[in-house]
């Protein structure tokens, strides 16, 4: 008799705890939905992403401009250039990218470093050395700006970490 009551009590206790647990702790039924609600500001925000992409695109652009300058005397060679603004807009605005689904724990996700470059209006035009040199300089400044900004941001974080420790 005593044994069964104890058994009954244990089962009720477990059930009660479970019910209360589900009701009050609000264990998420769909964990993917819940993930978005975490109210934490990411350490590396949008600016890092923007600057990183800026570095990527300007580096690509620099290679193209160098190609143009190298081929300034080559007959039949036309300008190659990407549009910085449009490319950056596409890269950053693409939240609805095609996602791959992991169906196995050993799957590796797609690399996110691929940039879909948008061609500039000047693509395919006749080469002009002055324009290319101006573009080279402009592109270089843009790169330096992004690099400087990133360095500054990281420097700020580093300062914060050091000051907090002391």
């Amino acid at each position, binding site marked *: 008799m005593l044994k069964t009551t104890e058994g009954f009590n244990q089962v009720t206790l477990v059930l009660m705890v479970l019910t209360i647990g589900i009701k009050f702790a609000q264990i998420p039924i769909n964990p993917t939905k819940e993930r978005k609600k975490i109210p934490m500001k990411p350490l590396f925000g949008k600016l890092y992403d923007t600057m990183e992409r800026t570095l990527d695109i300007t580096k690509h652009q620099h*290679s193209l401009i160098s190609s143009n300058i190298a*081929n300034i005397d080559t007959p039949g060679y036309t300008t190659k250039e990407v549009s910085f603004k449009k490319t950056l807009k596409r890269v950053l605005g693409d939240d609805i990218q095609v996602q791959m689904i992991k169906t196995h724990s050993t799957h590796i996700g797609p690399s996110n470093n691929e940039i879909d470059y948008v061609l500039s209006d000047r693509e395919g035009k006749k080469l002009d050395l002055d324009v290319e040199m101006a573009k080279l300089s402009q592109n*270089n400044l843009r790169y330096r700006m992004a690099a400087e900004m990133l360095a500054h941001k990281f420097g700020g974080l580093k300062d914060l970490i050091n000051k907090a420790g002391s």
Partner: protein
Amino acid sequence: MDFFKTFNISSSSLTVNRLQMNLISSNLANAYTTKTETGEPYRRRFMTLIPKAVEDFQSVLDSEVKDKDKELFYGVNVDEIKKDETPFRKVFNPAHPHADKNGYVSMPNVNVMIEMANMVTAKRSYEANVTALSTTKAMAMKALEIGK
């Protein structure tokens, strides 16, 4: 590291410009050479250029693995060095040992003015590529400063 590809692009053009300077110097040096090994006067040399796709490890790997077109970065390369087939200049000089029976000497088809103009172009092109190269270097150095 993508910058190395850019270095290769600029340096390919520097090589070509240097070769161009060699050809121009050779043409200028032989502007009055009336007899060469073949018996005829010196013929002006010039070169034709073609773009050359710059490959690095990444682009080759991408094209093999991802079935994707190679990145279109082009350096420059010499297609061929040709001899100028325009006729020689005839100068009346009967006292010259290479004069023909009518007293005319065939002079090389080198136009000094054209060569000088080409030289300036080659020099400017060289300078432009040096600027591009040093810019690449500055960018790479700047990138190294990010983590400091």
